[in-house]
């Protein structure tokens, strides 16, 4: 076989391959219906330990705040109705200091036990990137899985607003002085200031785009507009790589190839689906890449709607990051 299989697939399938293990979950309690998909799946499979945490991450105050608060309440009631523990929830602001991000993860990790599931579905990148880093570099857990749940649909309005300046994500600043020769962007729906940065940063860098395909429409068309708007800013032809939006492993492989096994320094821009962002995170940890982003400070309360179902179950994908002490994503 000419590729490395890194275990991923529907969460029940992965759980079935790890029989007998009990898992501690760190997830987010958000307005999105799908924020509970992983928890519901783990609960139904009776593989949850008692040490789980849901983070209620508060956006900046905005006109969406009343609606967002209402929807989070609904999710909270659902969580309790399905047997969730009241003291599982921790409230945090979106822009807490990096040290508080690390402490949150460390506190969870120390109580969690050997098997950890980090649900990145509704976690902002500002959170899940340092969480993954901390888990990979620090955690003694023997098994680590990241999960991502699919919604029924996304709002056709702006998904997020009031984004910040282009900056490295917490703990993903450049490791030292480096000349960057590669700029890799994962394509999404909203460019959020990216074209400006493409102009500013990538002048002499090769640019590669990870285009999420599948899925197809309706997101497909928004993705192509994103590409077109980027292309306008780029003096050079750009390389587009089609990568299934769910396939973290393939995205990781593309990053390895694009950077010649990590030897070429890259700036990564995770604007696409979360599984691609996860790939960038895991790659950057190994290769020392800089990961930059324009973090929004407000999310639309209908960012996503509903839960996609597969055979009657929430469609949740699981990505094994560590299995029996062995790290899966390496260079």
């Amino acid at each position, binding site marked *: 076989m000419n590729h490395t299989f890194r275990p991923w697939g529907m969460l029940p399938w992965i759980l079935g391959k790890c029989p007998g293990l009990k898992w501690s979950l760190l997830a987010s309690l958000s307005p999105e219906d799908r924020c509970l998909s992983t928890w519901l799946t783990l609960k139904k499979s009776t593989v949850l330990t008692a040490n789980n945490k849901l983070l209620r991450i508060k956006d*900046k*105050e*905005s*006109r969406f705040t009343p609606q967002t608060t209402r929807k989070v309440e609904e999710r909270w009631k659902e969580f309790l109705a399905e047997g969730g523990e009241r003291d599982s929830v921790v409230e945090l602001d*979106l*822009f807490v*200091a*990096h*040290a508080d991000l*690390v402490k949150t993860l460390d506190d969870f990790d120390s109580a969690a036990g050997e098997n950890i599931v980090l649900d990145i579905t509704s976690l902002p990148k500002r959170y899940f990137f340092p969480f993954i880093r*901390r888990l990979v570099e620090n955690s003694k857990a023997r098994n680590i899985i990241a999960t991502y749940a699919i919604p029924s649909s996304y709002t056709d309005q*702006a998904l997020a*607003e*009031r*984004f*910040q*300046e*282009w*900056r*490295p994500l*917490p*703990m993903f*600043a*450049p*490791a*030292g*002085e480096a000349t960057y020769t590669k700029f890799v962007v994962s394509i999404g729906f*909203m*460019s*959020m*200031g990216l*074209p*400006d940065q493409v*102009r*500013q*940063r*990538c*002048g*002499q*860098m090769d640019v590669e785009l990870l285009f999420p395909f599948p899925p197809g429409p309706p997101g497909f068309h928004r993705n192509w507009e994103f590409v077109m708007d980027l292309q*306008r*800013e780029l*003096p050079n032809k750009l390389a587009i790589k089609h990568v299934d939006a769910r396939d973290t492993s393939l995205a990781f492989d593309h990053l390895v190839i694009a950077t010649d096994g990590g030897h070429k320094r890259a700036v990564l821009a995770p604007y696409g689906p979360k599984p691609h962002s996860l790939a960038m995170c895991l790659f950057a940890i190994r290769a020392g890449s800089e990961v930059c982003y*324009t*973090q929004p*400070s*407000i999310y639309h309360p209908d960012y996503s709607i509903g839960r996609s179902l597969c055979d009657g179950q929430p469609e949740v994908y699981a990505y094994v990051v560590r299995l029996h002490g062995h790290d899966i994503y390496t260079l």
Partner: protein
Amino acid sequence: MAQPAVSPVIKGITMDSELNPFHDLYVTETSASRPEDFVELFSPFLIKNALLLFEPTNVVLKGTQGCGKSMLLNLLKPEIRLAYHKTPIDFPIPERLSTFIGAGINITRSGILDISQRPLSADPERDDRLFPLYFADFLNYWVVRDMLDSVTLMSKHPDVFPAINCESPLDEFARSVVQLECWFGYLDGARSLEELRARINTRIMAYRNYHQFNIRNLSEDISRTKTVIGEPISRAAECLAKCNIIKDATPIFIRIDQHEILCRSDDLRHDLGIQYRRIINKALSTRDPRVFYRIGTRSYAWGDDLAVFGTTSPLEWERDYKVIDLDDLLRRKEDRRAKWIFPGFAMDVFYRRLKRVYDTQGSTDVLFRRAMGRSPAPADLVLQYVGTSSARRALRIDDAWPREWQQYLESLFRDDPLEAKLAEAWALQKGEDNRPRMESPPPAEDRPWRSRRYWKKERVRQALMQLAASCGQRQLWWGEDNILSLSLGSILVFLSICQHIWDTLFRFERERPPAQRTNPLRGIGPEVQAIAIQTASSRWYHKIAVEEAGGNDRQRFINLLGQLLQAELYNDKALSYPGHNGFSLSSDDFLACPDVRRFLSDAVDYGDLYAVTHTTKARDRRQRIKWYLHPILSPHFKLPESHVKEPLYVRLATVIEWLKRAEITVKFPTKKSDKTSSVSDDLPLFPETDKR
């Protein structure tokens, strides 16, 4: 070799029909671009107006994005100077000012803002006192490292950099730097420039590693040796002179990029951001005889806080720093007699861009004028707008009007629709209840509105706007004057318009054989330009939310304001208020509410609005400020881009109401004297205005 002073005649053209000379808008702005591209495209036009930037004084360079700030600051980099040397093009700074050393720091990219993201101790209050000191220390080390890099590069090219005396050994200079007391011994042991740089790098990396959570603590040898802001930079500069690396009078220019982030980032606590700014202010306040700071910032962001860290005295303009306001420099003045320098600048940039793609020589203004042609006169536009529409539709003739008037207008409309529109307006002015002031229209040969010299001139744009709207037509812009007006002194907007024009031309002619395609240098048709300008305008509108930090709020506000002003102008059939494509607030009102002040200032800083102070015509003669949408947004909102007469006078309460309707959170001022605490939710959007 000097540039030719007089331009030769335009000669033969060849072109790659798919190459848009304006494709890359930011070539001269970004450090990521190739220096050789910078050299080719940089226009020295502004240099003579910005010579202060190269003089030995602290300079704050203000302007919106794309006004040319970064372009000018890039001239301070040695790589750019080197690139010039490789070409026949003279370095554009006058020789008497071109001897300097440049170094700098980019606030965002250096990682300096990570300081405060991780506690230094178990005591948060103590940490809050320490964070600014570490900020200062990091900045010092970073800048000194950049100085060393500049000096190293320059010393390798003595023919390019006469400022550097290459015979003086750099290692000796390095040793003298090491011995400076300001380091508190941290650099001890370094014996060469290479070792010095490595030692400095170690410290910077320690900061980085600490904030990446790679190490548990910042080592004691860092915490015990924190440096005072600016001091190591100044002392290192002294060493350069003492060791004869540079002449005593050679200035060191220190660039600080993205300064405005210090008070605009959610990632940084507001109070800490203020302290960090005050640290930088302290550096400026030292008025070092050798080291001078260059701060590129947006206009309003600079004035927020001028306090100096650790003191009670603020920075003083003119004494501690001088200002170059590029927006102000490039904007057309209200007094039309004042020379407007932007057109010369724009045409020079246009010429340089074209030269890269087309084999052409020619004077800069002729090239532009020939490509874009003249802008339309009202007579050119009115028939396009009106088309085959009837007078009743175009003029929105009121059936309640006297029959004689209706016939008069219809008849006049057949000859001259614009005159008919003006006649209607003239009739309505000082009329009552929307009826004409006289029962009978004037005799056919008499057009009394023409005798009032400025009356027609001030109203013709509004008249055209109303005609276009009633006939369901978009307004059109094309030609040299329109393009310059829409740019408002922003070279970025100007280039963007040109980019769209070229793009549209290529797009429309894609299927034509090359031999049949338009030669843009011989003239681009008005239809292409009109569509391109409309597209550019919409793109700039969308860009507000997509490409500007915090832009969603401003876009909603701009959208609301644009529609309000559009309605205001359209519904004013009497053409009484042709200036109501902008609004005015008294200075007192502007200052009374910090949230409003901040919001409007941000909108100006980001180029969505622009502001001009003016004096009211009212008896109180109070100072006021008027705001207009950036002209590039005019096509999108179907507003005239030119400004005449008085804008819409509003009160603070109205602006607050607008902000609320745009779903922007505004805290009301609490003092009784502000007269704003009793704003009611059903306040009309346009209260009684001062009728001038």
